[in-house]
């Protein structure tokens, strides 16, 4: 079974919102119609986004650390939003585990949004249907695109490669290796939703350098004097062979 998902490296994310804008751009231009934007240039701009980058400060001054936290649908293995949907508009695809909304069936009752502990679903106030991250399902299988571009828009936009995309059920995939080797974790594990998207924690990269590594004790220049020089009078093969 395939389960496509994102792995987001919080150690690398710089909070630039490139994933947010590229996501919005791609998904507002698709077949499903625009993602609503209200007062885009007014006092209180608001609208529907599939992806948002939030910022948290961890610790107490001066020992603080800024964590930029991209947040989108986690495509749970056991998504609580799906069984509550009365019309079946919300569903999880068998073939790749993407959780989707059928906009033609959705009645806009918002019950699925109540049933998502992560607040990943946002209603489109114009179209009056529930919308959420589709993992760019209209992009990743598009064979008219060159192979490297068949990835979600957010992944392509990330300038620091903080977003990885792949099959988390394949133990040898890039995302599975990242989760396994870099301590990838799910959000709110306490509710048993088994999110497919994982986050890689902040890491401190430290290196211990000992003094004797700065000055080599067995420095050959000091130990053995100067390197031997070439004797200028010695004849070479070129001398005898050049006529």
């Amino acid at each position, binding site marked *: 079974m395939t389960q496509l998902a994102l792995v987001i490296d919080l150690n690398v994310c710089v909070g630039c919102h490139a994933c947010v804008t590229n996501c919005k751009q791609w998904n507002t231009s698709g077949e499903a119609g625009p993602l609503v934007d209200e007062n885009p240039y007014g006092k209180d701009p608001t609208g529907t986004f599939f992806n948002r980058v939030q910022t948290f400060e961890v610790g107490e001054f001066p020992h603080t650390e800024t964590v930029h936290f991209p947040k989108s649908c986690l495509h749970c293995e056991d998504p609580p939003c799906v069984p509550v949907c*009365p019309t079946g508009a919300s569903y999880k695809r068998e073939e790749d585990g993407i959780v989707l909304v059928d906009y033609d069936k959705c009645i806009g009752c918002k019950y699925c*949004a109540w049933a998502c502990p992560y607040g990943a679903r*946002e209603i489109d106030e114009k179209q009056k249907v529930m919308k959420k991250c589709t993992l760019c399902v209209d992009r990743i299988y598009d064979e008219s695109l060159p192979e490297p571009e068949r990835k979600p828009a957010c992944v392509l936009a990330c300038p620091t490669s903080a977003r990885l995309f792949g099959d988390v059920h394949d133990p040898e995939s890039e995302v599975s290796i990242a989760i396994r080797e870099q301590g990838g974790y799910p959000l709110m594990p306490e509710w048993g939703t088994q999110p497919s998207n994982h986050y890689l924690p902040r890491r401190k990269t430290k290196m211990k350098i000992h003094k004797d590594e700065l000055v080599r004790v067995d420095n050959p220049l000091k130990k053995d004097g100067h390197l031997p020089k070439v004797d200028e009078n010695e004849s070479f093969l070129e001398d005898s062979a050049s006529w």
Partner: protein
Amino acid sequence: MHPAFSVIFLTTLIGAGQGLFLALMTVQAYADIGALALPEGSYFGTNSMIALALLVAGLIASFFHLGHPERAWRSAAMWRTSWLSREVIALPIFMGLVFVYGLLHYLGYNPNLFGENAPPQGELTYLVGLLGVVAAFALFICTGMIYGCLKFLQEWNTPLTPINYTLFGIASGFTLATALTAWMAPTLVNFYGGWAIAFTVLAFITRSASLIRNQRIKHRSTLATAIGVRHAQIQQKAQGAMGGSFNTREFFHGKTAAFLKSIKWVFLVLVFPVPVLLLALGLQNNSATLLGLAFAIQYVGLLAERWFFFAQAKHPQNLYYQTI
């Protein structure tokens, strides 16, 4: 959560409608074993239509909650998994049974299906009524479980939620029945009034239990589990939008803690002691006005109760939306 008035009116109106129907069937059940005399004339027919009117009003209110009301018929599809879908099925079934029950009484068509001498008498309405009772309770459970089944909304995730919905519906329905009966069949007023007081007291006990439970609730999700950073000191600095979003509008009631607390006391006074007092006074003085007032005040109190029920629930997604 942000309380939606469409849902507040839906749940309180259909609750009262279900309660009123259950009150009618209670009298018929008593009458069938000879404990009471059946009221004359169009008593059952009229009251059934009033119950039906409440159910229709609730149904209309529910449509205001939908983004696409014209697709509402689709919502019966997922009854295997969704309590909302089950409610969508149970409500029209119950409405149909109330209508048939009222119509049979109105037409006076009530043949004895199992022979002249076999109790209970007038089995056809009794049979339809019993089906209606089953549907009424199924509907109460569906309505309550819509909220009760969401396990991370810890204020709602308790058996007390469907129990409260049931008892509030029955209490308000019996109070309404008392008031209506004072006009139509005064001999039955004491019977209904007694039950109305009993159910109101019972609802007070279960609602108090859920209030006490919710006061001590320890929320399982914290900012640490929400973003997965194991630290006691985490502060949000930005939520990714400056003008708010669906997440800030749908999941916050937007009122102060003091306002929330005052609504709690408003409903605790208006739903329980005031109607009980008015019911007692109305029964003593044979005053239909006082009994009508008891229902009106209890209904207003129930609107406040439902508002508080929604506002009190803290959705874990709010952890992600604490600072702009």
